[in-house]
């Protein structure tokens, strides 16, 4: 007998099979997720999700006996029956006695299971890519970090590595001195043997050569430029993982709570979306009526204001904040604006100008959602002109909650495809 501890083995042997299952039923799961997102409370959007798909879709058929015909079965626990008794057929529903009528049948209509928030997001954002991802790759914000990378023979005196340099110097000195010292030793030994009286000439020669060698040895420099080693540094490109998301919303009297809730969902989707690509995502909330103000999340969504609407005030504030805090070379900037389309008529034109010249060049992507079921107004038309010119500007209209997700997908549909197609179309 042997005991083997398997606990340390890889767990989740079924993970592959689980993934296979999800892969196979992706379309059903996607549908289930799409159904749920409209009902889901915003605060728990990041949690795991329970998914139900019809179990008939996932059944594994086999040849089985159906109902009907003549069947004979044995049951335990007889109480009052005697031979020949006739009993009413138990009702065919589930539970209680009904179970025995259909002991082959599968009762559950829905197969429900949990998918992790990771899987949830994967499926939710499937086919979606970050706006302008392709182009971002080229001109993605990059900071450099200096890191050590070995040693160099050339460099700035302040980078000299003393230990390495001295090791080099010692090695060089040893290497050059050795043959000379050997020679010196030999000559000195010879000198000791020479008879001074007999052969002064030879002695003199020897002494001279010895002196010369000693001088040569002395002349070997203690340190040479050859020995110097410099610490080497290289710059490692570090893509910026910072992103800031501006949420702009009209909170004037015409925006009711329901509309705001809808906008909220959109912002959360965007937030989650950015969160998947950037390590840190900061959110700036700007609400406006005739004046714009930077607020916290709670105030943004739940305080009620009255009065008219001047959209440009928010845009101006955003520009100020960008200048003050979010340098576009360090931050990936995203903005989403929600409104019911109301604006002071003269202001819309100004908004167009602000976005066109000041804001759109700074941001990675700007989305505008109009939550209304009325005819589009001035602001919409002005923005439409922007959408034609700027690739990083997108706008959509939302009338009800279920629209959000499709609209969101529309916004961030794989841009790479569009990017690939458009030059060809032009060319």
């Amino acid at each position, binding site marked *: *007998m*042997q*005991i*083997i501890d*398997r*606990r340390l*083995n890889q*767990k*989740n*042997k*079924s993970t*592959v*099979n*689980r993934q*296979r*299952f*999800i*892969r*196979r*039923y992706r379309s059903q799961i996607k549908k289930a997720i799409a159904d749920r997102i409209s009902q889901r409370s915003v605060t728990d959007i990041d949690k795991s999700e329970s998914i139900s798909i019809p179990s008939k879709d*996932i059944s*594994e*058929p*086999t*040849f*089985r*006996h*159906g*109902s*009907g*015909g*003549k*069947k*004979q*079965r*044995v*049951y*335990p*626990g*007889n*109480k009052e*029956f*005697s*031979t*020949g*008794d*006739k*009993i*009413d*057929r138990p009702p065919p529903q589930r*539970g*209680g*006695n009904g*179970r*025995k009528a259909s*002991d*082959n049948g599968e009762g559950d209509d829905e*197969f429900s*299971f*949990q998918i992790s928030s990771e899987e949830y997001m994967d499926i939710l954002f499937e086919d979606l890519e970050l706006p302008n991802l392709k182009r971002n790759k080229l001109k993605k914000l990059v900071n450099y970090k200096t890191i050590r990378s070995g040693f160099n023979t050339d460099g700035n005196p302040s980078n000299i590595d003393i230990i390495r340099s001295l090791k080099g110097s010692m090695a060089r000195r040893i290497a050059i001195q050795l043959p000379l010292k050997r020679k010196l030793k030999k000559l000195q030994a010879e000198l000791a043997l020479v008879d001074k009286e007999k052969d002064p000439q030879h002695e003199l020669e020897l002494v001279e050569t010895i002196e010369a060698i000693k001088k040569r040895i002395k002349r070997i420099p203690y340190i040479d430029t050859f020995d110097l080693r410099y610490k080497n540094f290289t710059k490692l490109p570090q893509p910026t993982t910072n992103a800031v998301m501006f949420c702009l919303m009209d909170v004037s009297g015409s925006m009711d709570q329901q509309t705001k809730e809808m906008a909220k969902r959109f912002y959360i989707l965007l937030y989650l979306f950015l969160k998947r690509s950037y390590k840190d995502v900061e959110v700036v909330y700007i609400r406006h009526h005739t004046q714009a103000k930077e607020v916290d999340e709670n105030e943004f969504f739940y305080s009620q204001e009255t009065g008219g609407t001047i959209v440009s005030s928010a845009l101006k504030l955003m520009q100020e904040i960008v200048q003050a805090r979010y340098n576009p070379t360090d931050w990936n900037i995203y903005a989403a604006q929600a409104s019911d389309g109301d604006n002071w008529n003269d202001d819309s034109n100004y908004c167009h100008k602000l976005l066109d010249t000041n804001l759109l060049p700074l941001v990675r992507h700007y989305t505008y959602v109009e939550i209304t079921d009325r005819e589009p107004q001035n602001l919409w038309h002005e923005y439409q002109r922007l959408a034609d010119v700027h690739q990083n500007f997108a706008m959509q209209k939302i009338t009800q909650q279920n629209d959000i997700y499709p609209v969101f997908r529309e916004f961030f549909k794989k841009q790479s495809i569009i990017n690939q197609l458009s030059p060809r179309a032009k060319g």
Partner: protein
Amino acid sequence: MNLKPKKRVSSPISTGSDWTYELVDQYYKVIEEIANDFGLDTYPNQLEIISAEQMLDAYASVGMPIGYNHWSFGKHFIKNEQSYRRGRMGLAYEIVINSSPCIAYLMEENNMMMQALVIAHACFGHNSFFKGNYLFKTWTDAEAIIDYLIFSKNYIAECEQLYGIDEVESVLDSCHALMNFGVDRYKRPYPISMREEKRRQKEREEYLQSQVNELWNTIPNKSSNDEDKNQPRFPSEPQENILYFIEKNAPMMPVWQREIVRIVRKTGQYFYPQRQTQVMNEGWATFWHYTILNELYDRGYTTDGFMIEFLQSHTNVVTQPEFDSPYFNGINPYALGFNMMTDIRRICENPTPEDKRWFPEIAGSPWQETLTFAMQNFKDESFIAQYLSPKLIREFKLFSIKDDEKEKKLEVTAIHNDSGYQEIRQNLSEQYNMSISEPNIEIYEVNLSGDRSLTLHHTQTNNINLADTASEVVKHLHQLWGFPVKLMSIDDKGKQSETASSPAKDKTKI
């Protein structure tokens, strides 16, 4: 009894509830000693300590330690995990694999008593059953199963690489639908092994295709050119092993698909004995864990607390809810099996006049021999037909119900009284008869000269129709066969009607 005189040890092996390797080892040794005293013949054992999660994994792959990948295993995993997390399902205490060495899983969460119980139940109960029962002996090769599983996993992974996951998946889907129709019930198979498979696989690849081509040769045969009608039916006899027939005869099937059909067929074959011996297998194992642990106690190895805890788990396992209980879910194989095994021992040791009348040949015989004989030579169906005693029928208060679609009410045809024993025994036995519990479907004919269509016959018993799933299965069959497939039902009076066909007939004409 061959037992040595009982020796009592002075102190129990353990008193606490936590287990350690040393304790498991000590318990194993004494349990082994007792099992040897009782004469249980087993494969060598291998205990594997696993966590609850790993137990769920093992569940998903039906206890197979290695299996090929398929979404349906994922589905079962999710299902089990779900009900486990919600507390709807407790995990089984053990899973044991019919292999040599016999692998038994011990869950780390279990306490010492449980581990001892599992060792007695799995390592000696199930293990000796696997080694002794005739069905397992003829249908499975414990030495080779692990090798074969590795072979099949690798082969299928290779196919996925070559032909894509979807392609392989759809073949597996179709095979799974027919998995229960992949055995020759009345012929004995060759045991499977990896070495053999590998060696033969190459030959088979070449040979198979030539075989098939032979069959489908379109060049007219001189002799039978003008006497098509006299051409013998193919297959000459109806074939019950549908997967085997597909593997050998499907006209256009690529070789790798034939190999997959074979793998599923062989895997199904491995489970075939298990499906037929559930009551006996569990009954045997439960009987032995009960007997061994009691002996353990008698010899002084365990404490009173250990035994009380053990009896509680044991009682839970062998409870049979009555038919009107909300917990009723058919007859509990543990309960029926355990009680029958215990009852056989009782009949041997203390037969009543009734037992002498019903079981003259075993009443008063040595119980170990009689029980071992029963374990070795029966399956559930015949075991019940042979050994279910009137006393047990009374204890279980069994009654038999006739459910005829044509009648308004159900009829109680037999209860636990003198006139009912025979019938109940007969009916219960048939409940475990696979040829009755599974529909009788055979491959009847292939249209060789025409559209190559395949005709299956479903021979009804008692006018029981096939479940609706049949049409789905026929679709799967069609996918494997590659040409039209038709399923005919033949009722009690011999009348034929079409149950399903694929591709579906155009119904607009009707």
